[in-house]
C-alpha cells in the first residue's frame, strides 16, 4: 500500500515560497511607490523629494503653490508617463502570464499570435499615409487585433484543434505581418517616414498625454483586473485540454476568451507606448520565482512587478544619457540580461 504515516513537509523551501506572498505583496507595493516617487524626482530637471512632495501637496490643496516650474515638470512631463508606465507594465506582465498559462508554455510571450507584428504594421501604415498621431495609435491597435484575428482564423483552417494549431496560426500571422511591415518600410520615404517608423517601433512613453490616459486607463485597469481574477482558471487550463475538460471546465470557451482579453490588453499598451519587449516574457518568471507558480498568488505580484519594472526602465530611458533612449531598447537590454539570471535560478524547476 502506498501509505506513509509521516506528515511533515519535506521541502521547506517551497513552503516558504507560497507563504512569502503575504509579506512580498506589501513589500513590492512599497517598492513601486518608492520607484514612482524617485522617478518623479530624477530627470534633466532634478527635483528634490521635498519639491515633489510640495507639488503633490499643492495638487491635493494641502499646501500653497511653491514652485511653478516644478509643478509643470511633475504634472506635464513626468506624471503622465509614469502613470502610463504603471498601466502598461502591469497590463503587459499580466497579459504575458495569461499567454504563458493558456499556452502551457513558460517561454511564450504576448507576441505569439502576432499582436506586436500586427501593431507595428498598422502603425507603420498610418505613418506612411501621413495620418495624425492619434490615427497611428488607432492603426497600431487595429493592426494588433487584425493580426491575432488572422492567427486565430488560420488556426481554425488547420486540421486537429488544440495548442499546436494555435501556435502555427500565430507563426503564420507573425510572418505575414512582418513581411507587410517590411513592405511598408520599403515603400516609406527614407528621409522622414522611415525614421518615424523606426522610432515608433522602438517604443517610448515620451509622448503619452493626459488625454490618452483618461481614455485608456479605465480600459487597461479593467482588463488587468480581469486577467488577475482569471488566475484560478489558468491553473486548470495549464493542465492541458483533456485534463481540464475532465474537471468540467469549458476549455473551448475560456481559452479563446482569455486569449482575447490578454490580446486586447497588449494591443492597448502597444497603441499607448509602442513595442515594449521582454516585459511580458520576463516578469511572470520573476513573479513565479518569488511566490511560486500558483496563479492566484503569482498574478497580483506579476502586475506590481511589471509596473515597478517599467517605471524604473522608463527612468533609465530618460536619465542614462543626455538625450532619451527609447524605452523599448532599455527593456530589451535589461530584459535579456535579467532573463539569463532568471533561467540560472530556475535550474530543475523549469519546463
Amino acid at each position, binding site marked *: 500500500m502506498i501509505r506513509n504515516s509521516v506528515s511533515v513537509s519535506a521541502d521547506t523551501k517551497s513552503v516558504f515560497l507560497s507563504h512569502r506572498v503575504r509579506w512580498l505583496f506589501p513589500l513590492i507595493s512599497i517598492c513601486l511607490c518608492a520607484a514612482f516617487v524617485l522617478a518623479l524626482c530624477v530627470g534633466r530637471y532634478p527635483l528634490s523629494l521635498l519639491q515633489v512632495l510640495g507639488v503633490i501637496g499643492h495638487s491635493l490643496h494641502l499646501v500653497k503653490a511653491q514652485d511653478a516650474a516644478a509643478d509643470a515638470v511633475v504634472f506635464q512631463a513626468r506624471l503622465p508617463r509614469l502613470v502610463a508606465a504603471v498601466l502598461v507594465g502591469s497590463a503587459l506582465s499580466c497579459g504575458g502570464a495569461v499567454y504563458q498559462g493558456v499556452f502551457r508554455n513558460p517561454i511564450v510571450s504576448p507576441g505569439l499570435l502576432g499582436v506586436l507584428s500586427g501593431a507595428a504594421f498598422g502603425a507603420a501604415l498610418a505613418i506612411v499615409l501621413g495620418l495624425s498621431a492619434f490615427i497611428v495609435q488607432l492603426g497600431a491597435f487595429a493592426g494588433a487585433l487584425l493580426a491575432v484575428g488572422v492567427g486565430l482564423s488560420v488556426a481554425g483552417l488547420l486540421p486537429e484543434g488544440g495548442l499546436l494549431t494555435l501556435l502555427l496560426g500565430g507563426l503564420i500571422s507573425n510572418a505575414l505581418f512582418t513581411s507587410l511591415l517590411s513592405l511598408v518600410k520599403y515603400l516609406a520615404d527614407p528621409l522622414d517616414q522611415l525614421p518615424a517608423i523606426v522610432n515608433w517601433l522602438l517604443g517610448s512613453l515620451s509622448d503619452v498625454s493626459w488625454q490618452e490616459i483618461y481614455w485608456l486607463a479605465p480600459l487597461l485597469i479593467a482588463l488587468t483586473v480581469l486577467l488577475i481574477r482569471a488566475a484560478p482558471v489558468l491553473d486548470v487550463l495549464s493542465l492541458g485540454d483533456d485534463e481540464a475538460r475532465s474537471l468540467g471546465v469549458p476549455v473551448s470557451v475560456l481559452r479563446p476568451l482569455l486569449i482575447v482579453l490578454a490580446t486586447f490588453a497588449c494591443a492597448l499598451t502597444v497603441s499607448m507606448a509602442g513595442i515594449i519587449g521582454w516585459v511580458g516574457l520576463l516578469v511572470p518568471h520573476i513573479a513565479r520565482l518569488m511566490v*511560486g507558480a*500558483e496563479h492566484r498568488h503569482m498574478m497580483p505580484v506579476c502586475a506590481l512587478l511589471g509596473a515597478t519594472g517599467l517605471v524604473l526602465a522608463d527612468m533609465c530611458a530618460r536619465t542614462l544619457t543626455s538625450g532619451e533612449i527609447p524605452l523599448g531598447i532599455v527593456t530589451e537590454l535589461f530584459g535579456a540580461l535579467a532573463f539569463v539570471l532568471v533561467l540560472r535560478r530556475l535550474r*530543475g524547476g523549469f519546463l
Partner: protein
Amino acid sequence: MNADLLACEGVCLRRGRCGTVLDNVSVSLRAGELVGLLGLNGAGKSTLLRILLGLLKPDRGHVLLEGKPLGAYSASSVAQQLAYVPQSHTAAFPYSVRRMVELGRVPHTGLGSALRAEDHAAVDHAMARLGLQEMAERPVTQLSGGERQRVVLARALAQEAKALLLDEPMTGLDYGHQLRLMSLLGEFAAEGRLILLTSHRPEELFAPASRVLVLDDGHIVADGLPQNVVTAEHMSRLYGVSLKQVDHEGSRFFTMEK
C-alpha cells in the same frame, strides 16, 4: 447486480483517411467493477476512454451515465462522477503537489471559489491515501514519473467520482509501483467505484480485474471474466504471436510457443 453506471451504445467514430476507429461499440460498466481494456496500439482504447468521458463526441451512438445520456448533464456534474487519469501528465508549471490535488475539487467548488472544509478533507484524504503528505509542498515538476502518477491519481480521488478511467496507468512505472497501483485500484473498486483501465500487459490484469474487454480493429471482440478472456487463444489471436499459458497460484503467465 445494480444498474449500469457507465455505458455506451452503438458508438462509431471515423477519423480522417485512416477510416474507422470504433465501429458499433457497446459496453456497459457497473459500479464496483475493475475492468481492464486490452488492445493493440492504435486499436482505439484511448479513443473509447475519451468518448466515455465525454471528451470526444462519437459520430454515431451515445454514452449513458446512470442511464441518462451524457449530454443531459452539465460538464461539472459529469466531472463529479467521472474522473480521468491521463497516460502521462506533464506539468507546465511547478505547482505544488497539494495544489495539483486541490484542482480535483474544481468540479465541486467551481472555478475561483475558495475550498470549503469538506474540500480540504477530501484533498487530505486523497493525499494520505496515496502517501503524498510528505511531498505536499514540492513542485510537481521535480517529481519522478511514478510520483507524478500518484499525484494525478490523488487528484482523481479528490474528485470523489464514482468512476475512474485510467489510460495506461502502468506505463513508465517501475515494477513496485505497478504492483502498488494495481492493488490500490483493487481497493478503490472494492469500495464501490468503477475502475476502467487500458493496458498493454494481459498478465497484470489477470488477477486483479473482475472483467476484461478486448478491443480489436474497432470492435469489442471479447468481454468477460479474466479467466475466460485472458487466455492463450485470445491473446495469440490479438497480438499475432502464438502463446502458451501457465497458471500458477491464481496468476496466469504467457510464454511464446517455440
